[in-house]
């Protein structure tokens, strides 16, 4: 059992535990924080899977951008200032049942498949450069569309969330 394996299983365990405990917490803020923990451990798994760029992007954007914005949203939508925002659970039995069934289904189907053995990348130190080149050559269309998408989302989000009363109602 090498160190990477141990670290992989450690990160996997953390991610699994935080994800599962997210189902049962009642405090929304705790949920957000647990998500941050889960994302960080997933990023660690990325690193151990030779996808360093994606891991860094994950940390910066997900944990540092989206979750912060989500925490802003939590603060803005809590009715009582100073008190924690507690949620109720509804439909828990069907929800858990469905999730459980799906999990069992996936595990069963996955275990019936046989996959190839993973291999090492040929030049791991040139990976980021390859990603950059690939963005501009092989994946330039999704790159541009992603940019347009980001623009549209930006405009759309700011319009939806604005408090101006013009052209509404």
């Amino acid at each position, binding site marked *: 059992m090498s160190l990477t394996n141990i670290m992989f299983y450690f990160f996997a365990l953390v991610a699994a535990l935080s994800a599962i405990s997210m189902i049962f917490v009642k405090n*929304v803020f705790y949920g957000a924080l647990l998500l941050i923990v889960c994302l960080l451990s997933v990023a660690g798994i990325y690193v151990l899977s030779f996808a360093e760029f994606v891991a860094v992007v994950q940390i910066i954007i997900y944990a540092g951008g989206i979750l912060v914005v989500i925490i802003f949203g939590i603060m803005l939508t809590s009715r009582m200032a100073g008190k924690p925002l507690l949620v109720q659970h509804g439909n828990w039995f069907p929800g858990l049942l469905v999730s459980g069934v799906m999990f069992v289904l996936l595990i069963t189907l996955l275990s019936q498949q046989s996959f190839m053995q993973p291999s090492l990348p040929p030049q791991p130190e040139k990976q980021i450069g390859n990603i950059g080149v690939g963005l501009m050559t092989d994946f330039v269309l999704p790159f541009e569309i992603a940019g347009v998408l980001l623009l549209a989302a930006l405009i759309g989000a700011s319009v939806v969330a604005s408090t101006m009363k013009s052209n509404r109602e």
Partner: protein
Amino acid sequence: MVPVEHILYLAALLLTAGLAIVIVKRNAIMVLLGIELMLNASNLNLIAFNRLQADKIDGQMFSLFVIVVAVCEAAVGLAIVLRVYKMYQTSVPDEVSELKD
């Protein structure tokens, strides 16, 4: 090397956990968190399959775009949640049921 199935199992767990959060929680923001978790599970799948063909970078590129989409979706979703909150004074999606039958 860790066998790729274990990552896939983890990804399945994260996916179903995210689904459970979406169905069970009675808060719109928790629903968004669940959606993020599900997207992360798919990302994990992509990176796991990328390990099987280490000379290609398709998986990593796809997951980058998945992250971009997730960002856009989170932003717009939060904007909608804030708007709904301003209009209905509640962030429980069950109470905003004006489209019911």
